[in-house]
């Protein structure tokens, strides 16, 4: 807090930032206060960030956040002890930072992993500082308080794991099997998904609810399709048939072009990228290719269509036998009267004739 004070950031401003940060990742407003408190108490959670088979895209996307921005994040909310792209030292000094942080914060630090881990030939396909990714990961994860895989590569292997996967690239959770690993897939992952997870851990010491693939439900429970802005076009059957055709220009649904949205769990359709509304694949007319999903991303052909995972809003669809009833009480009444009248009149006439007839017979006899 004092550091921020020297930077000219007031407590009030900081609170604002913290609240924004909390809001951006779906935590309630009061969480922002807690974050600020925690930050003020100088017990900033330490974070160690490892890079393996990756493109650093996830870090890059983290740089493009503003609530909090990276500076506020790493200076005010967390203690980023090791990050090969952002840290100042390099070489031996960098490694020393890593060792020291691990010792000092054993059992408490958050390990964020970016990039896949090659496993073939004892993992020689990725060596940082002479050590294989496999070794480093095992070592650093052993004493981590929480492990977060950022990006598809760390979550399930990502691009490096695409067929034929020559390096045997796998995600973190295939290496670290004894601890819960939070997967934040995406290529890149949405940085706010990471922020939310980390800040929650930082503030409350808990991890968000995860689905069966270890992904935070707050971001990965729903498919792109369920919240897609172009959904009305899908529902109405308006599709772009080719890139650049009238439908494409009109912003129609990209399903026919191979959009994997209906089978892809992510929140890109809600949180677009670089904080610019519309700056996300579908928004610019490119079909989603399912980068968060191991079965789809870098595996299924870009322009092949997928099954819709949960055909939603069945109430809007027609039932097999729609209801067509239209009977009014007045009609029933009148028709009843007519039939009843005829039958009644016939009965009365018959009786009268019968008694007349009998009288005649009696008269004759």
């Amino acid at each position, binding site marked *: 807090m004092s550091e921020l004070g020297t930077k000219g950031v007031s407590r009030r401003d900081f609170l604002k930032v913290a609240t924004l940060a909390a809001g951006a990742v779906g935590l309630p407003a009061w969480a922002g206060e807690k974050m600020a408190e925690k930050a003020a108490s100088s017990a900033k959670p330490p974070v160690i960030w490892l890079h393996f088979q990756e493109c650093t895209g996830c870090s890059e996307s983290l740089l493009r956040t503003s609530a909090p921005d990276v500076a506020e994040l790493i200076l005010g909310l967390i203690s980023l002890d090791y990050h090969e792209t952002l840290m100042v030292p390099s070489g031996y000094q960098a490694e020393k930072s890593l060792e020291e942080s691990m010792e000092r914060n054993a059992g408490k630090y958050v390990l964020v992993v970016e990039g896949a881990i090659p496993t073939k030939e004892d993992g020689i396909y990725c060596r940082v500082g002479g050590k294989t990714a496999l070794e480093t990961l095992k070592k650093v994860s052993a004493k981590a308080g929480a492990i977060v895989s950022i990006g598809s590569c760390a979550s399930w292997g990502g691009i490096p794991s695409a067929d034929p996967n020559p390096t045997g690239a796998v995600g973190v959770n295939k290496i670290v099997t004894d601890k819960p690993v939070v997967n934040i897939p995406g290529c890149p992952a949405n940085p706010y998904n990471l922020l939310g997870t980390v800040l929650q851990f930082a503030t409350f010491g808990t991890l968000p609810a995860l689905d069966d693939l270890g992904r935070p439900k707050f971001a990965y429970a729903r498919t792109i399709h369920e919240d897609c802005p172009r959904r009305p076009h*899908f*529902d*109405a*059957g*308006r*599709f772009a048939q080719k890139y650049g055709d009238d439908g494409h220009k009109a912003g129609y*649904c990209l*399903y*026919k072009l191979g959009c994997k949205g*209906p089978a892809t769990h992510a929140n890109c359709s809600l949180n677009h990228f670089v904080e610019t509304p519309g700056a996300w694949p579908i928004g610019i007319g490119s079909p989603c290719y399912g980068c968060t999903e191991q079965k789809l991303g870098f595996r299924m052909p870009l322009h092949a*269509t997928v*099954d*819709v995972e949960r*055909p939603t809003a*069945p109430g*809007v*669809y*027609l*039932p*097999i*036998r*729609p*209801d*067509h009833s239209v009977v009014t009480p007045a009609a029933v009444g009148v028709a009843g009267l007519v039939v009843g009248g005829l039958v009644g009149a016939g009965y009365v006439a018959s009786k009268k004739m019968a008694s007349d007839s009998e009288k005649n017979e009696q008269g004759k006899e």
Partner: protein
Amino acid sequence: MRISRRSLLKGAVAAGAATAVVGRAEAREKKEVEAEAVGMLYDSTLCIGCRACMTKCKEANSLPYDRSADGLYDQPNDLNGNTKNVIKVLTAEGGQTAFMKQQCMHCVDPSCVSVCMMGALHKEGEGTRHHEGEKKGSGIVLYDKGTCVGCRYCQLACPYLVPKFEWTAAFPLIVKCELCRHRANPKKAGPLAVANPACCEACPREAVVYGKRSELLAEAKRRLAAEPQKYNGHVYGEQEGGGTQVLYLAAKGVEFKQLGLPELPEESQAYFSEHVSHMPYLNGITPIALYAAAAFVVRRNKKKEEAEHHEEGK
């Protein structure tokens, strides 16, 4: 009295003999699928319920959008006078959803064609009225509004509840899918020269495809054989009601009657109805023979009456 009864008997025997001599005429043959019959194959397991087919159908057939009772645009709640094609959903108890596309089945032996008095509903190129540009063989059931009297017998007869009527029009039509015959491209080879259904063109999953019925049936069977765990093991329309040219596949655990496709015997209702009603007629011999017999008897009776009358005096 005895004389007239004898005359009646004589007349009837003569009529009967005449009919026997003419021979047993088969009142009606069973209809077979034509070699060049075209149709569609709808695979419910591929359908995602996007309803592109519904939109495209409206566009291709220049159909107006449906409106709710208070005049607002709304989706149709069934096939109706504005809608030739609908997607319906079956929500089974286990949460399993299955989609169902409903439109004209283009039956091999359609009930609607059998009952239509003046042949307004007819299979392409067949029927009693000559229709310009139609060629026999595709088996598409077409509608000629020029001959239709709007009796709506077709609505009664169709077991799939397909033909719909414009109830609120002063000059109403019967409305049903005609396989987009008007979109046929004569320059193309194969079935597209005959028809080009918009729904098949629009479908992003190729859940409904167009082609020759024989090829579609083979394809359906191939799918059943290739993935028996995916399908319920039966191609609907192969035999039902005499067979239909639009075939259906459904997912395992989904029965066709749940999708609204009725269980029908192999014999078409058209065959049954025409056979039963025509058998006594023997191609028209019976009424003529009976008329002759009746006229004979009535005249005889009349002459007898007059003779009795004269005898009694007056």
